[in-house]
């Protein structure tokens, strides 16, 4: 890939809404990404490999559990800091952001919120330092948008639980040391269990052949009579609400992350359009190109404001799941549309790895599906404003 010349747009001076520390954190992650990740990301994505060597660096810049309190090895930052870190990582690659999102929101978050004191002490510091990598198993081959239908289950065997079932599409699973797995007990109630690599009967086959998030590893989790110690059950919360609250945290980060990807596409398209000469003039001088660019910066600016406000609400503990859904849905679609338009502006060059556009575009096809599909988020908003759930059409109650 060509040199990373990214310059962040800030059309509405949104920076003035941030604290000095927010900006220092953001600029730090941006500088780290430019130095350590941008030069290698294209190569790893092309080879469909996760650049494992960046794990210690991700930990150093605070990308693993930024809001985890200092007593558990985190930096104890606010939600806007978390968002900005995700924005900067996804500015480079959604796969890198996915690794950090999962570690932070889907592994550290449930252990922090629902774990016992022993579990927090045992896992959180190692997850924060990157010594341990975690993954999150909710989706199953036959239960994606409808996780409540899951069949993975565990039985109480007196001194341990016996876990059976399989999870699908699990980010980080092939490299994970631990998995936070959601499974039903004998009464059909969903609980979280911490499954450690090395437990007998637990395997993590990799999913190959992805055209998207190629620099992030995705796999399955297979549980064949896995004996899970009883102290590995997350005691703090059960029911579908437990994994859903993790998703709230991750989706919040994705809403910010998508802005990063969009900014990168816009920035590259703006620069390219001023440098590329056709019909004797820069292509930026054509109205059709300007329309694309002007709409891009308008959408990015709207998304920034939406997301900043969501960050304030979340810092105050007031952001609802439905508000988070709206931002995730809006921003990811915005980023995907911008990636597609930016690719057109780059002409043929836009399909090569010389520019980040096509990689962003393909990555965002996952981002618009995982953590609740685009349509499911629409239904969440619909449910929120009408009070009528439209997730099922067989008359059965949702949940």
């Amino acid at each position, binding site marked *: 890939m060509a040199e990373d010349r990214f310059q962040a747009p800030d059309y509405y001076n949104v920076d003035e809404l941030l604290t000095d520390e927010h900006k220092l954190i953001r600029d*730090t992650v941006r500088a780290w990404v430019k130095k350590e990740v941008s030069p290698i990301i294209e190569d790893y994505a092309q080879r469909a490999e996760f650049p494992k060597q960046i794990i210690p660096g991700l930990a150093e810049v605070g990308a693993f559990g*930024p809001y985890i309190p200092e007593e558990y090895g985190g930096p104890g930052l606010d939600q806007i800091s978390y968002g900005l870190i995700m924005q900067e990582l996804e500015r480079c690659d959604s796969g890198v952001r996915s690794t950090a999102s999962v570690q932070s929101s889907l592994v550290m978050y449930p252990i922090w919120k629902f774990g016992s004191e022993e579990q927090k002490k045992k896992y959180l510091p190692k997850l924060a330092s990157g010594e341990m990598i975690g993954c999150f198993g909710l989706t199953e081959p036959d239960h994606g948008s409808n996780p409540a239908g899951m069949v993975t289950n565990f039985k109480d065997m007196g001194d341990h639980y016996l876990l059976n079932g399989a999870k699908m599409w699990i980010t980080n699973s092939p490299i994970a040391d631990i998995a936070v797995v959601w499974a039903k007990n004998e009464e059909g109630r969903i609980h979280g269990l911490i499954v450690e690599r090395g437990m007998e009967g637990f395997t993590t086959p990799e999913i190959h052949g992805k055209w998207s998030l190629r620099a992030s590893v995705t796999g399955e989790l297979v549980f064949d009579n896995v004996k899970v110690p009883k102290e590995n059950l997350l005691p703090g919360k059960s029911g579908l609400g437990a994994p859903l609250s993790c998703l709230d945290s991750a989706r919040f980060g994705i809403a910010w992350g998508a802005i990063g990807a969009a900014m990168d596409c816009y920035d590259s398209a703006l620069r390219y359009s001023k440098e590329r000469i056709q019909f004797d003039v820069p292509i930026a001088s054509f109205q059709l190109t300007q329309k694309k660019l002007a709409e891009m910066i308008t959408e990015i600016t709207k998304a920034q404001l939406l997301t900043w406000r969501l960050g304030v609400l979340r810092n105050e503990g007031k952001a609802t799941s439905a508000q988070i859904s709206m931002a995730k849905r809006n921003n990811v679609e915005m980023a995907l549309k911008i990636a597609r338009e930016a690719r057109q502006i780059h002409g043929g060059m836009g399909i090569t790895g010389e520019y980040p556009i096509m990689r962003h575009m393909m990555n965002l096809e996952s981002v618009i599906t995982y953590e609740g599909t685009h349509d499911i988020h629409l239904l969440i908003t619909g449910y929120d404003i009408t009070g009528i759930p439209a997730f099922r059409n067989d008359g059965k109650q949702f949940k």
Partner: protein
Amino acid sequence: MKILVLISKVPDTTAKISFTENNTKFNTEGVQFILNPYDEWYALVRGIELKEANGGSVTVLNVGRADNDPIIRKALAIGADDAVRIDTDDLDALNVAKQIAAYAKDQNYDIILCGKETIDYNGSQVGGMVAQLLGLPYVSLATKLDLNGDTATLERDIQGGSEVIEVKLPFVASAAKGMAEARIPNMRGIMAARTKPLNVVQPVDAANATEVVEYSLPPSKQGCKFIDPDNVEELVELLHTEAKVI
């Protein structure tokens, strides 16, 4: 080992430059500011490396108002131990140097480092003036700095080669590219910077010696003029009358 690093705030390299008040003031509206790269990448990092190797402390000093605090916090996040801000507007190089010297004279610093220049005004004056005011030796544009007891060995690029200089502590030096490798702060550093001391010091009376009369922007880039290869006379004529290079 007590090390003082002088730091200043400069507009980001991508900032759009314009002037106000009849072209006598730099227009800061909408401009992002950063820590001067020569101060940050070379002077500060080398200072921190020397401290890490020899023990002691690194203090960063800035002459300016509270809106400079973000760049001071960044220096603390990178690894300085404490900071001093002399609370006044910087008027010119001599004014700044006098403020720094007035503060530094009783502090017994072993080494005072600054960047070779700021990337905005490119004055390259403050280091030398501070040295003069404190009666210390000054080594400008150093690309390397090593310590051996109370003697420092510095290298400078000179025409066609390099020069190696030895100087006894205490001394002042300005740092150029090569002296260290830029460091990106980490989260631990950013968190630690929250509680590191930033002492705000009152200025002394120090007049400025110079006054800016006018700023102007460089002429905007002209398009290329194509001249027929057969028409050498026209080329010579234009180089003479228009470009005024021959």
